[in-house]
């Protein structure tokens, strides 16, 4: 079966998305937006890992960074807002 799009093109697009999401994560003024950037970056990075042929690295990248670490950040956010009140 001939793939519709070249794998290399997909790879470059995914890596570009990682870079853009990372820029959002570091540059966004609003912490909520920065966190979205971080989650998107982890998701795209895990896709990049999968394309490179490392399924386990990709799965754990997703589970730990987009799942666990993001929850940790959200919890920090939640306590911070409470302190502000």
């Amino acid at each position, binding site marked *: *079966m001939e793939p*519709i799009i070249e794998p290399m093109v997909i790879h470059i697009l995914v890596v570009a998305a990682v870079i853009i999401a990372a820029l959002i994560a570091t540059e966004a003024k609003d912490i*909520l937006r920065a966190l*979205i950037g971080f*989650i998107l970056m982890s998701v795209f990075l895990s896709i990049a890992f*999968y394309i490179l042929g490392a*399924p*386990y690295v*990709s*799965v*754990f990248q*997703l*589970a730990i960074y*987009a*799942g*666990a670490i*993001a*929850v940790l950040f*959200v*919890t920090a956010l*939640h306590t911070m*807002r*409470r302190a502000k009140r």
Partner: protein
Amino acid sequence: MWLLYLLSLLLFPGFIFLIFVALFYEWIDRKLYARFQNRVGPWVTGPSGILQPLADFIKLLSKEDITPEGADKPLFRSVPVFALAIALTCGLFLPITGVRGLISFEGDLIVAITLMTILSITIFYAGLSSPSRFSIVGAERTMLQLLSYEIPLMLSIAGVAVSTGSLSIAGAVVAQKTRWLIMGPNILGFVIFILAAQAELERIPFDIPEAETEIVAGWLTEFSGRKLALLRLTEDVELFYLSGLAATLFLGGPLGPVIPGLEWLLHPIYFLVKSFIVLFLLSMLKSLFARLRIDEAVSFLWKYVVPLSVLQFLLVRVVV
């Protein structure tokens, strides 16, 4: 080939099927919940009210769609779409027609659970982007609850992974060809999974984030019209997904005695019947209990369910 895949993605067992089954499950859930309370439940629309969830959905789609003045508008508008997209993606992992789901790769068990966590984070965003204080309190409660039920959920899944020796859903299904996982030490994992699923779905006794008598509708308060319709549909798809996942991981999924040549019909039927059993349990739990307070729920989950899940993991490790 591509066309066939696209059709299965869109029709069966893809999005259209998922949406209609989800609405059907909402009907069953409401009907069971009503019967347990000596009511009749949905009755008017269609035979025994079977079309009621669909009618509710269409009604909400046609209602006025309000974005509050003080809301974080881009976030507020995109959250319902993202939530539904994530829930439908989760549904594609379910092995409805055979051993494999539409999306199937090594390690998809972890991805399937992580997507649920991301869905909870999306819900947190839904609450925080609304200007109402009820929404913010609901969102914070969602997060607090997520922190307490996620570890038991992950550990019960880890028990499955250890006893089947595979990190993929397909592997778990194949390993249950002769004996379902629930017949063994994994029964404790099943109980924990059901409890955690109830918390994930924000149903009684863990409906704290949308406690009606305290905080109106929690994080859902400010949503209306199309956005509310999508979020309600998300909850239904989530209900189908979690009952299907429990049926897949502990009750053998779509496998069962099969007449050769009729696999394409029997596999989905087995899958649906098994997930009905799980749905029945979930509805029963919902009608048996009353809502816990947030501190009661968190301390219950941390004091009893987390140690219990560690115990079941050790038990599985020793027995296997």
